[in-house]
């Protein structure tokens, strides 16, 4: 009985269904899995599991704990790629349910790992199981939303993917509140917080599981007809996922996403020490935490703003803005640092982070424009491997180049300048790839018989 409730056939919306009931379902999932961005709030407490108030010999160190998040993000990309077709077939309800099971059990397995002090259980729990939940959950509502909002696909997916950015804004203070609540003389509260969060996120995702609906075959918004002459790069044909990923367009978009994410994720991972080192003595750790919060907020807002804007100016033009404006901002950051202007520095980075979020949120609609709606969720899943690569590349570039500069005697305040210029070069590569985007060759279009010509 449970399986029939989860089946795609039982999620088909009745006539007259209000499509604006679907975005909250998507948001419920993304707000839950977006917790991943706030995992760093557990880093320090996890180094004090044995010592409770301070680290003692035998406690895990930050380097070992850092791998939990890295594994989760790597598995996110892989799971989205591997399970993309299954998500398309199974429908949003079943995939959201599986995502909730994986993500929540990831917390529970990790809690067992904390109890027995076995780090590999945290790698397996939050890293692998949780990562699968992240990947499946991330793509689960995308194709459904695109089908419900053929007139505004950017806005619809932007709204959902905004939830992934927003999830961190909820999880960061929630984790702190829960850890303080559960703190006792024999526990620093992190184990109990993991169990509680596993339960909370499972229940919260159920809002999405129960309320998600797919439109009936051939459904269109009232009064809307597809444009007779679609804009350039927007196709009304379909490309199957196994064909799509072999086209140059897929790999151009892969590089576009990878470059955009690399430029943003490196900054996000090092934002706190970066602002403190560039403005030495003027920015306290508390102020730096405020800066990180502001970046997270703009990361979230940018997802909705830029994806919605792309419905009006086109996806390709939106990415042109990301890359061109990104190059201008990154190249001026060193000068702003020398000038010592904190407000200008903050303004530059909140815009950069809004475009980082915007890149994530606009890509599903870009894929729909180029490959059609047939397997857009599965194609999106495969493209997310770019995120896994960028998740390693961005922080590594920032960290290693900074350290290399410092080792060669460059003052800490100036150690980020070279990195900023490297980010400009990466964005230029993205700009060129976006410039090279053309419509998919007709020979790749899906035919009714089930084959590409």
């Amino acid at each position, binding site marked *: 009985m449970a399986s029939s409730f989860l089946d795609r056939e039982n999620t088909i919306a009745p006539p007259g*269904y*209000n499509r*604006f*009931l679907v975005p*909250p*379902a998507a*948001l*419920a999932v993304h*707000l839950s899995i977006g917790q991943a961005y706030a995992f760093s709030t557990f880093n320090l407490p996890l180094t004090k599991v044995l010592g409770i108030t301070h680290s003692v010999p035998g406690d895990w160190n930050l380097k070992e704990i850092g791998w939990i998040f890295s594994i989760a993000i790597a598995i996110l990309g892989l799971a989205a790629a591997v399970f993309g077709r299954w998500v398309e077939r199974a429908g949003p309800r079943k995939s959201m349910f599986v995502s909730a099971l994986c993500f929540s059990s990831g917390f529970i397995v990790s809690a067992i790992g904390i109890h027995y002090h076995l780090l590999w259980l945290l790698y397996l729990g939050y890293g692998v199981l949780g990562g699968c939940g992240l990947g499946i959950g991330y793509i689960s509502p995308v194709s459904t939303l695109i089908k419900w909002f053929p007139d505004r696909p950017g806005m619809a997916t932007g709204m959902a993917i905004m*939830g992934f950015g*927003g999830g*961190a*804004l*909820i*999880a*960061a*203070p929630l984790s702190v509140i829960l850890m303080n609540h559960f703190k006792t003389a024999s526990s620093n509260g992190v184990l109990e917080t993991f169990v509680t969060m596993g339960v909370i996120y499972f229940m*919260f995702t159920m*809002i999405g599981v129960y*309320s998600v609906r797919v439109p009936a075959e051939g459904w269109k918004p009232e009064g809307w007809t597809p444009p007779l002459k679609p804009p350039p790069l927007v196709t009304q044909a379909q490309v199957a996922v196994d064909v799509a990923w072999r086209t140059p367009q897929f790999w151009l978009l892969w590089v576009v996403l990878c470059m955009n994410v690399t430029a943003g994720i490196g900054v996000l991972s090092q934002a706190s020490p970066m602002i403190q080192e560039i403005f030495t003595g003027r920015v306290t750790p*508390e*102020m730096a*935490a*405020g*800066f990180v*919060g*502001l970046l*997270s*907020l703009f990361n*979230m807002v940018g997802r909705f703003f830029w994806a919605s804007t792309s419905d009006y100016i086109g996806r390709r033009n939106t990415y042109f803005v990301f890359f061109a404006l990104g190059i201008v901002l990154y190249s001026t950051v060193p000068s702003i640092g020398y000038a010592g202007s904190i407000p200008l520095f*903050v303004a530059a980075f909140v815009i950069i982070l809004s475009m980082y979020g915007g890149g994530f949120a606009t890509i599903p609609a870009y894929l729909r424009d180029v490959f059609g709606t047939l397997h857009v969720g599965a194609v999106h899943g495969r493209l997310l491997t770019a995120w896994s690569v960028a998740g390693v590349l961005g922080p590594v570039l920032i960290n290693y180049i900074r350290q290399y500069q410092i080792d060669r005697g460059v003052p800490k305040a100036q150690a980020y300048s070279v990195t900023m210029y490297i980010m400009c070069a990466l964005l230029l590569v993205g700009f060129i790839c976006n410039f090279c985007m053309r419509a998919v060759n007709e020979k790749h279009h899906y035919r009714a018989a089930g084959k590409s010509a």
Partner: protein
Amino acid sequence: MKVRGIILWLAVGLPLLWGVFKTLQNAMKLF
């Protein structure tokens, strides 16, 4: 349908608003 819509939007909107408020509170330390 209308009531269901309001409940759904509140269920996801309120936690998000709380998160935004907490983040803004934190961000104020920057200025």
